[in-house]
C-alpha cells in the first residue's frame, strides 16, 4: 500500500541553474524499506524534506498518508518520524534528556512514555547509557539514539537521511536489523544512501541522479537488466591494471574494476564478450560470466564508468622497480595514558600498491596514519618511509608523501586557483615548474571551470579531486588518503 505518492514533483532553489528535483513521480509503500539512492547532490535530502513538509515544492505534489505536507502540517507531524543527517541530537544533553525532550515535543506522556522509553531503550540497547551525554556516544550509538528519538509517538513513516554515514559497518548492520523489525510491524521506512551495497538490501529503491528519477522499483529488477553482461577475466598473466586499461579501451566495455586477482567488466547491451585472445593473453586465461550486482546496473543506467586511461597516471613519473618497500611499520604502538590506540601494528607497503587500512570507528586507523606521517610520535615500535625513520627525520620523510585528509584540508574560502598555488608553494615548488604542475593538475582533474570559485562551493566530488590534486602536486613517492570510500565516486 502506498503511503507516499509523488506526482510530477519539482523543487527549484532560487539562483540555482538546474532544479534540485525534476518532475519526480513515484510511490513509497508501507511495510518495506525504500532506498533513496544517488550520489551526493542528487536531491535525496531535498526529497526527504519535501516529504517531511520542511520545504514546499515548486510544482507537482506530495501526499503522505493522504495529507498534504504543507497544508496539513500539524497532522503530518504525527505521521512521520524524521532523522536528519547528524541525527538531530543535542550533544550537551544526556541520552535520557534527549528522549524526554522529543517525547514532550511529540506528546508522549505518562504511562505511555514509560512504556515507550523502556521499549526503545531495549530495542536500541542503550539502557546502560541513559545518563551519558549524547556528545560522548560513539557514532553508532548516536545513530541509534537518533532513531529512538524519531520513533517516539507512533509514526507510520520513518525518514532516515543518510543514517549510514560516519558509522562503522557493524553499527550500520545493527541499525539495518532494527529497521527490518520496524518494517515487519507495518512501518514505511525511507533510507537514503549513497552506498550501493546498502541500496541493494532495500526491498525497493528510488534512484536519483542530478534531481532526476532514473529508476523506481525493486533493485533485483534493475540488476536483471544487466544479466549476462557482467564478466570476470580470470588467470590473466601480467599486470592487472594494464589488463583493465586494455579491456576498457575495447568498444562495448562500459565499466571495469579490479577484483582481487581478477578483473571484472561490464558490457554494453548486445555486445559480444571479448575472447581471452582479444586481450592479448596466452593459455589458461578465461572470460567467465558472473552474477550481476546492483552496482553494475547502476553504472549501466548512468551510461558507463570512466574510461581506461588515467590522466593522473600519465602525469606522474612511472614507478621504477615494482617490489621496493616504501612504507614500513614495525610493532607500531601508540598509547594515550592507559589506552592503546594502536597496539603492535606491523605491515609494509611496496611501490605501486594500494594498501587499504580497514576497521570500524576508533580502530586506530587515523592514529596509524598520523604516525606514518610523523605527526604523532609512536610510544614504541618504528615507522619508516623510504628507509627514513620518522622518529628522527620526520620533515625529510614528509617531503616524499602526499596526504589527503578526511575533511580534505582545503581552504574553503580561498579560490580553487589559490588553493593550488598555496599547496604547491607549501610543498616547495616554485617558478616555471610550479606553473607547469598547476596547469597539469587543472587539466588532469578537470578543474578549469571551477578555478575562480571558492573551494567550499564545489560539489563534493570536485572537492575530492582538488584535495587529491593538492596532495600529489609535488610528485610524492606515496600518498595517504583517509577519505572514506564512496561507492559512487570512482
Amino acid at each position, binding site marked *: 500500500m502506498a503511503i507516499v505518492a509523488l506526482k510530477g514533483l519539482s523543487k527549484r532553489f532560487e539562483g540555482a541553474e538546474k532544479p534540485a528535483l525534476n518532475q519526480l513521480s513515484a510511490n513509497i509503500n508501507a511495510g518495506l524499506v525504500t532506498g533513496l539512492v544517488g550520489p551526493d547532490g542528487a536531491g535525496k535530502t531535498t526529497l526527504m524534506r519535501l516529504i517531511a513538509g*520542511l520545504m514546499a515544492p515548486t510544482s507537482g505534489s506530495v501526499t503522505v498518508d493522504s495529507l498534504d505536507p504543507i497544508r496539513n502540517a500539524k497532522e503530518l*507531524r*504525527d505521521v512521520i518520524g524524521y*532523522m536528519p543527517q547528524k541525527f538531530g541530537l*543535542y550533544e550537551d544533553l544526556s541520552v535520557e*534528556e534527549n528522549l524526554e*525532550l522529543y517525547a514532550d*515535543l511529540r506528546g508522549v506522556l505518562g504511562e505511555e512514555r514509560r512504556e515507550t522509553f523502556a521499549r526503545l531503550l531495549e530495542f536500541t540497547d542503550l539502557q546502560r547509557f541513559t545518563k551519558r551525554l549524547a556528545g560522548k556516544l560513539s557514532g553508532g550509538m548516536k545513530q541509534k539514539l537518533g532513531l529512538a528519538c524519531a520513533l517516539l509517538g507512533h509514526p507510520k513513516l520513518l525518514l532516515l537521511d543518510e543514517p549510514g554515514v560516519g558509522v562503522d559497518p557493524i553499527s550500520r548492520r545493527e541499525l539495518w536489523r532494527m529497521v527490518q523489525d520496524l518494517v515487519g510491524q507495518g512501518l514505511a521506512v525511507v533510507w537514503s544512501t549513497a552506498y550501493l551495497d546498502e541500496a541493494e538490501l532495500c526491498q525497493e529503491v528510488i534512484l536519483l541522479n542530478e534531481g532526476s528519477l532514473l529508476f523506481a522499483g525493486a533493485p533485483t529488477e534493475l540488476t536483471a537488466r544487466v544479466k549476462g553482461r557482467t564478466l570476470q577475466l580470470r588467470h590473466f598473466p601480467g599486470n592487472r591494471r594494464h589488463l583493465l586499461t586494455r579491456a576498457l579501451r575495447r568498444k562495448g566495455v562500459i565499466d571495469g574494476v579490479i577484483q582481487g586477482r581478477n578483473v571484472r567488466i561490464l558490457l554494453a547491451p548486445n555486445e559480444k564478450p571479448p575472447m581471452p585472445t582479444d586481450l592479448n593473453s596466452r593459455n589458461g586465461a578465461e572470460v567467465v560470466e558472473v552474477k550481476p550486482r546492483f552496482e553494475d546496473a547502476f553504472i549501466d543506467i548512468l551510461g558507463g564508468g570512466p574510461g581506461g586511461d588515467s590522466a593522473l597516471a600519465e602525469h606522474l613519473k612511472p614507478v621504477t622497480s615494482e617490489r621496493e618497500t616504501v612504507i614500513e611499520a614495525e610493532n607500531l604502538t601508540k598509547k594515550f595514558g592507559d589506552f592503546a590506540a594502536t597496539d603492535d601494528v606491523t605491515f609494509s607497503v611496496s611501490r605501486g600498491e594500494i594498501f587499504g587500512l580497514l576497521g570500524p570507528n576508533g580502530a586506530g586507523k587515523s592514529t596509524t596514519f598520523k604516525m606514518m606521517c610523523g605527526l604523532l610520535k609512536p610510544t614504541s615500535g618504528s615507522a619508516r618511509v623510504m628507509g627514513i625513520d620518522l622518529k628522527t627525520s620526520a620533515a625529510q620523510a614528509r617531503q616524499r608523501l602526499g596526504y589527503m585528509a578526511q575533511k580534505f584540508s582545503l581552504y574553503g574560502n580561498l579560490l580553487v586557483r589559490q588553493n593550488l598555488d598555496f599547496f604547491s608553494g607549501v610543498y616547495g615548488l616554485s617558478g616555471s615548474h610550479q606553473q607547469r604542475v598547476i596547469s597539469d593538475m587543472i587539466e588532469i582533474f578537470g578543474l578549469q571551470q571551477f578555478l575562480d570559485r571558492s573551494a567550499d562551493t564545489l560539489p563534493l566530488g570536485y572537492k575530492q579531486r582538488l584535495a587529491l590534486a593538492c596532495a600529489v602536486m609535488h610528485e610524492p613517492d606515496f600518498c595517504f588518503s583517509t577519505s572514506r570510500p564512496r561507492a559512487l565516486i570512482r
Partner: protein
Amino acid sequence: MFRRLYALCRKETLQIWRDPSSVLIAVVLPVVMLLIFGFGINLDSSQLRLGLVVEDHGAEVQRFVASFFGSPYINVTVGTRAQMEQALADGKVRGVVVIASDFTQRLERTSETAPVQIITDGSEPNTANFVEGYVKGAWQVWLRERAAARGEPMPAAVQIDSRFWFNPSALSRNYIIPGSSTIIMTVLGALLTSLVVAREWERGTMEALLATSITRSEFLISKVIPYYLLGIVSELICIGVAVFLLKVPFRGSILMTLLVTTFFLLSALGLGLLLSTATRNQFDAAQGALNAAFLPSMMLSGFIFEISSMPLPVQLVTYVIPARYFVNAMQTLFQAGYVPQLLWRDVGCLIASSIFFLGLTARLTKRRLD
C-alpha cells in the same frame, strides 16, 4: 502548548548550565567588571603630582605657594625650572606651575597683570584638565584670602560656590558603576544568545525540531526565558557588588530597576536572536553582535563617555542605541532615585526597541527550511 514550551525551556536551561562559559559570563564577569570599573577606571585624580618653580620669594608669593600645600588633592614638589621640566618629561609630575622672578613687582603695579605659567602634560588630556582646574582653584583661594587680609572686597565680581547635586563628592565611580551593567547585559543578552539559534542550525538540531509540532512562538519564547532569568540574576549580582562592595549609593527602587533591566534585556535578546536567526552561523552572528550591540553599548551609551560632549551627528546616533536609555535610567536610579518623567521615557524607548527586535525575529523565524 505549555508542555512543549516547558520542555524546550528545560532543554535550554540544561544547555546553559552545562556550558561553563555562560555561567562565567553571568556570574564571574559582573564581579570582575565591576571591580575593574570601580577601581581601575577613575576619571578623578585624587592625588595630583604637581611641580612648583618659585623664582620670586616675596611675601605674597609665599602665601600663594602655601595655598597649594593646603590642598588634599595636590602633591607638590618644589624645584628649579630645569628639574621640573625633566620631571614632567619623566612623568613624575603631571604639571608644573612657574612663578617668574618679577611676579611681586608686576603685582604691585596695578596697570599690569602678574602671570603664572602652567605647563601640563598634554599626552593625558584628562589629567591636564584637572591640573589646570586645580591650579585655578588654588589661585581663587589665594585671591580671596589676599583681599580679605587687605580688607578689600573680592576682586572678581562673581564668587563661585559650587556644589554637585546627585553626586556630592563628584566621584566618577558613582556614575560609571550604575551604567557598567549595560556591558554585562549586552554580553549576556546579545552576544550569548546570538550563538544559540545559529548553533541549532549548525548542529542540525533545528531540522529535527522543525519536524515536531512546535510553533514559532514556542521556539522563540524558549530561547528568551532562560536567558532573561540569567540576565536578571546577573543584574542583581551587579547591584549587590556595587552597593555593598563598592559603596555606590543606590537611591531608587529595586522594582523599578528590575523593570528597566527587563526591557533592556528583552531588546538585547531580541537583537541577539535576530542576528542568530538571520545568519544561521555562529561566527557571523557573534561578529554581528559585537558590532551592533557590544561596541555601541560600550562607547555610545554614555556610561563612560558623556553623550553631551560628542559631536552632534554621533549624538543623534545614540538615540537609536537601546543601551543609552538603560544607562540613563540606571544612573537616575542610583544617583537621583525615582524620577518618573525621566524613567518612564527611558522605559518607553526600551519597550519600543524590544518590540522591534523581537517582532523582527519572529517574522524571520521560519517554520520551514526554504
